[in-house]
């Protein structure tokens, strides 16, 4: 049962990291109009950061660890997508 719960909280961690990265990208995506868009961007970042902090604070320890793993794992997966795509394209480019 604990394992199932840990899998679930791992999933929640993945989901919240996706939302957090999406919110952080708001800075880059709306940079061209940041003068007027900053409240919207800051609101999104704060909302997801608070959600992550709240979930981490509310969860008991074994689940908190799984949640942290979910957050970290997705961050690593997401960042590694970029070099992996480049390597794939380089290897498979027609010579």
């Amino acid at each position, binding site marked *: 049962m604990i394992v199932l719960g840990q899998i679930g909280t791992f999933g929640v961690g*993945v989901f919240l990291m*996706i*939302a957090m*990265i*999406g*919110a952080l*990208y*708001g800075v*880059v*995506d*709306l*940079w*061209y*109009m940041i003068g007027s*868009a900053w409240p919207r961007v800051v609101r999104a970042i704060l909302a997801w950061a608070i959600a992550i902090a709240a979930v981490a604070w509310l969860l008991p320890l074994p689940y908190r660890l799984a949640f942290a793993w979910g957050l970290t794992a*997705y961050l690593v*997966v*997401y*960042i590694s*997508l*970029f070099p992996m*795509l*480049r390597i794939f*394209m380089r290897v*498979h*480019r*027609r010579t």
Partner: protein
Amino acid sequence: MSAGVLWLDEVGATDGQLVGGKAANLGELLRIGFPVPNGFVVSADAYSRFYQSLGLQANLARDASATEIAQECAAIRSTIEGADLTPELADAILSAHATLVAGHARKVLCAVRSSATAEDLGAASFAGQHGTYYYVDRENLLTKVKQCWASLWSPEAASYRATHGIDDASVSMAVVVQEMIPSEIAGVAFTANPVTGARDEVVIESSWGMGAAIVDGRVTPDHYVVARDGLKLRDKRIAEKRLMVSAHLEPGQHARLEQVPNEMRLKEALPPGMVDTIVEWSLKSEAHFGKPQDVEWAVCEGRFYILQSRPVTVMGREEIGAGLSGKHVLFKPIFENFTDPLTPLTQDLFEVYPMLSMRFVRGWLYMDISHLRRLLPFKVSDQDLAERMYSVSKEPPDWPLSLAKLPASLLAGFVFYLTAAVLFARSNSLPDDALDSHRATCRRMAQNESVSAEDTLPRLWMLPRLFAPVADLPLLLNLASFRFTLWMGILRRLVRRWAPEIRSDAETLLGSGTDGVLSAEMGRGIWALAQEARRSARVREIFLKQRPEQTLMTLKREPEARIFLARLDQFLAINGHRAIKEFELRSVRWEEDPSVVLGMVRNYVLVEAEPVVHEKKAAEARTEFLRELKAALMKLPFESALGFRLRMIRHAAERVRYFMKLRENTRFYHIMGPGTVRKKVLKIEAELMRDGKLKCKDDIFYMRFPEIAALQSGALKWLDVEDKIRERRIEHIRLSKMGPPKTIGIELKGKSAAPDLAVDVSQLRGQPASPGRFEGNARVILDPSIDASIEPGEILIAPYTDPAWTPLFLTAGAAVVEVGSYLSHAGTVAREFGMPCVVDVPGATLKIHTGDRISVDGERGSVRVLSGGAAT
């Protein structure tokens, strides 16, 4: 004559082994009185004796690799071209030539054509593989004869022989030397329709100048369809003929391809009565040879000539993809916007990187659905999946769930989610101008010389940087915007569940009416330009009196046109990257040549009335519908107090509208990619032409990137690619006329892609794409870059549409399109403009003629021809 040279009228149909199939045919026609230009043949025996004298081997090694064969062929060609003819043969050829040209007041040039004996071997067709040379004078004659012989040893011809089991030693090559007819008008005639296969009609294509411009596909010719029975004209379409191959070179002129004078462009090339002459001689040729003929003809000083007559090769759609394994379905998102095959260069651009389950077949993009089927958690056959992809049903399929495939499907879905989820999160609520900086990215990429033309598109489309803004991901965003299908399904279910009695097109109505769809804005921008043009009487007059190609030059000299030109510049600064068939590298962008835009402006300037007020009507219909929906929902428990059902429906409708707009607008930006590549290709083309390595503009689009690189480095020369380019052009035209099969390796149970002309032409069926009913006169437009005139209330009949067609939607009363689906561009824009639209109506442009009175039912997807009008 002597020494292996014979006059054409000395040979006949039975002399194929002596003079090859082409010469035998021409000789036969000449002997029985056909108006064939005179000439002579250097016999196949002469070639055989010459070849043996060089001590070359008769056969290529069968087990050699392609590279070894290419090297061996190159050595043989080099030996043939470098050797001298025997004095006896050379004298005989030059003496025959002297006789041929004697007695003419003008300088006579000759066509030197290969006539291989293997062309008689059953179904083998060496079309385009053997050399043909035009405008040959006495000085170059012997060289060209040897080059024809050498073309028997091109790697393509050798490979073709090997594939078809033809022994190299069994093939020989005669050469026809014929007087070139300096034609004023030329063309082709087919005694059976080469596209539909119909045997009861003759098809004629004609244009100004020499026939090469038609055969090579450089010009859109005038088109006639004549019924055999009574020689009645069934269809006549006069095209805008922009280019011609001139018969004469003026002093200092080097290129024969030239612009047709403006006053002749839209003029019918054939004089009265000539259609009958062409049909009569073509049918005589068919009667003589006993099978449908493809006749090349020319008219010089009013006299009619037959240049060539050969059997019509009608390649069926089923031959496309023959031998290809797998289950392939035509990739609709590209085909819906562009029905022609892509040119070799564009195709090559997409093939630089692996395309996973996609592949090009003769220039059309297909998807192997067996991979997709394996990933779906349903028990479904390839055939059912293909049927579904072309289905008009909005209902979800009733395929049974497959528990065995479920884990793999879930895993694939999870991996896809991990990959795309951040992009989904980023694109949930973007402002309309979020992608505008992509324009500057493309500009920088166009100027960046360290990125090659073929690497430009992947860099713009597929290789995002970690910290790149969403503006640099237009293609990925376009893919992410397909979430609207999910929201559309939710919307449909909600409406059906809570208001089952409401109209059947509820979700279509709720999902339309969005501001800020850029292709719709573009149409309004052209309307605004027309309004500006009408403000000045002088500018209006220029538009009305001049062709769009001349208009810009005249406007630039006109002081009153300053404001209009400034507005035009503003319009092009936003929309200049657009073009007709914009995925295609060959397509000229509006910023290079705005005459298409000016043509559309002219069309609106001519219109006295306001455009059809569909938008207002659609907005009223939406408001009325929302009132009905609200009333229906209010009858349900708690709705009047909480209103949550209406809120859920409104939210789903808002999401549908947002993602549909995102889909259309991301395309506006990602299509800048091919335009950027085109800029680089044009730069290379200019360099190659300046260095004399390419001879003709536009030819580069019929090459592949490695060939271009080889031309640049000097590894290939013009003569090495000339025939390939010509052959590919001809193939491209043939395929464009034919259209692709929807599937390869799968037999669809439903209707085929082929237009069936035998069925009732008064009632046509298609897919409903935008609701509403409209009755009006039809206007068939095949290419808006040539003809963009449509009057308010006319019904647009088009083979396909892409965003460049959008301005025509503004004045049209309704639209009928041969290809497409609910999600295609035509449907999206028609819904935004609130006009009825039916798509996927095969053969609509053939069955409906301009002027026909028709009614369009955009709810049922039906088109009815009420009465025939005057065909153009």
